[in-house]
């Protein structure tokens, strides 16, 4: 019995971990190329969740169907944010960049508060309580769909970065900024694109996440910290690393919630983060820092 319980919990953690991974991809892409840590990460994801909620409430669109719309909207937001604001702090010290992103985070929380109020809200889909039974396994339908959607979006992202000229150009910017300028790449536009892609990941992750959790404006900071943990464990700037880190954290949090206490699960993640920072600061799949 208890073995079955752990297996169930682990599978559900794995599926949640895929969404964590997708969201962390957004952070990783931006840091890997622009070298800016997006401290407004979680808040942007919450923005995506609220956008999905609005589409669900007003037009009855299923969160998974509104995913492309929300991702596109967040892409535009990220593109403009980088091109109009973040670009101007690229030459400043780490703490100034941090403060800018933190103040953007505060503004995003405030906007969500003004528009939606402080209460937790959710999108109740018709298949919300269904589940698949595979042998002894009993997996929530929403979680399966959510994990699958996260996997599909991540796959598209990998394909984009590896097979399209634009994707390759963005990776070139990340590998060698000066070199990218020398060969005539439009770095400014590529940076804006990168930021847009990063926030689009968050929009997608937010849309999927709304299937699993209730959304409220103060949800952001915990997602920001979670994404940091995942990205550092997986390796900053490494895309497979973000997914791997997401799965690791998803599974270990789920198991820690059962074996220890649910409220201690994030202490477990932070402990894991400290361990990885000390033993392998570049992360599991990261390259050695330049």
């Amino acid at each position, binding site marked *: 019995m208890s073995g079955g319980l752990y297996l169930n919990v682990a599978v559900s953690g794995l599926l949640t971990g895929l969404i964590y991974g997708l969201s962390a991809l957004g952070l990783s892409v931006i840091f890997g190329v622009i070298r800016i*840590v997006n401290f407004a990460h979680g808040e942007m994801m919450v923005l995506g969740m609220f956008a999905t909620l609005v589409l669900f409430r007003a037009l009855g669109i299923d969160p998974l169907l509104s995913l492309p719309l929300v991702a596109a909207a967040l892409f535009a937001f990220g593109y403009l944010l980088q091109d109009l*604001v973040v670009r*101007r*702090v690229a030459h*400043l*010290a*780490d*703490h*100034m960049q*941090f*403060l*800018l992103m*933190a*103040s*953007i*985070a*505060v*503004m995003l*929380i*405030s*906007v*969500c*508060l*003004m528009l939606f*109020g*402080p209460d937790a809200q959710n999108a109740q889909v018709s298949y919300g309580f269904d589940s698949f039974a595979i042998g002894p396994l009993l997996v929530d339908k929403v979680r399966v769909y959510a994990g699958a959607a996260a996997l599909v979006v991540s796959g598209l992202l990998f394909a984009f970065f590896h097979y399209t000229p634009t994707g390759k150009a963005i990776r070139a910017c990340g590998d060698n900024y000066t070199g990218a300028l020398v060969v005539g790449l439009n770095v400014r536009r590529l940076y804006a694109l990168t930021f847009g892609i990063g926030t689009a990941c968050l929009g997608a992750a937010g849309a999927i996440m709304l299937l699993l959790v209730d959304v409220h*404006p103060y949800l952001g*900071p915990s997602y920001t*910290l979670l994404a*940091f*943990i995942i990205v*550092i464990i997986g390796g900053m700037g490494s895309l497979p690393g973000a997914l791997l880190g997401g799965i690791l954290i998803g599974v270990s949090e789920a198991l820690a919630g059962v074996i220890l*206490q649910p*409220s*201690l699960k*994030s*202490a477990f993640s*932070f*402990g894991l*983060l*400290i361990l990885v*920072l*000390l033993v392998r*600061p570049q992360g599991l799949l990261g390259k050695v820092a330049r």
Partner: protein
Amino acid sequence: MIARIIESASPRALALLAVVTLALLVAPWLVDSYVLSVLIIVLYFAYVGQAWNLMLGFAGQLSLGHALFVSLGAYTSAALFIKFGVPPIIGVFAAIAMAVVAGCLIGYLGFRFSIRGVYFALLTIAFAEFTGIIVDHISWLGASSGLFLPVKNQQSNDLLNLRGSPTMFYYVILALTGLAFALCSWLLNSKLGLYWQAIREDQEAAEASGVPLFRYKMIAVAISSGLTGIGGVWYAFYYNNLFPETMFKTSQSVEIILGSVVGGVGTLFGPILGAFVLTPLGEVLTAATDGMHLDGVKSFFWGFCVAAIVLFRPQGLWPWIYNVLGLAPKKEGER
């Protein structure tokens, strides 16, 4: 040391400093209790901002987890007082010890394993959040329902037990701010401070010139965390309640660093100026948006102001005001 500062400053700067100091000394007689409470918060942030600034502004090490040191100082002194009746005047030494040990542990791990820049900052966040979750589960410290100090009658001021009127807390935090300022200005011009600035400007060059990086970075973290821990003691006895849910959070750390960054990192007056700008700004925004009855308006403008300062005054307000007011001494070779 004081003679040298007076010598090197312009008459205008000295006059301004004298007026501000005098105004702060007599403020409790001039202002009402509301303004006094705002001034108290201003000075608290000036103090912890100064302590944080020592680490980043002087020695170049970015910490985003200073809430940890405030909280450790606060919890240590409060627990000693509540559980064992140890007065804060003695408890403060335990608080300093706790904060310094935590700071040195983070510093040791970070610097030994050469975790730098953003990664070091994230390490400090991780330690603060981790400790917060642990404290959240220690029922002896009140866990998530909080730790409360007994509030007795406030008729007399008991300095040794830090029980008394807002005016007493005002003078305590004013004295702390003054002492921290004096300590920092002495350190900045000492050999130690010069080593720190060498590390801040170019770590490799400093190492090549024979500056023992590890030792001096550790000293910076130790002093910074110890000073912040003292701030935590004051915090605990002023507010009388501590919740891990807010104390250890990154948002608390952000509040600590905000004044320094807005005022000017690496300057002596920056943290003080920043606190004097930001806290009243928050109060004004509260008053201005109070009638709108809409959550989030205040914090939106707050974030907007901070973003504007980052974008338009990235060096902080102090260097700018310094020039505008013409405080620079008319001497060659000085900025």
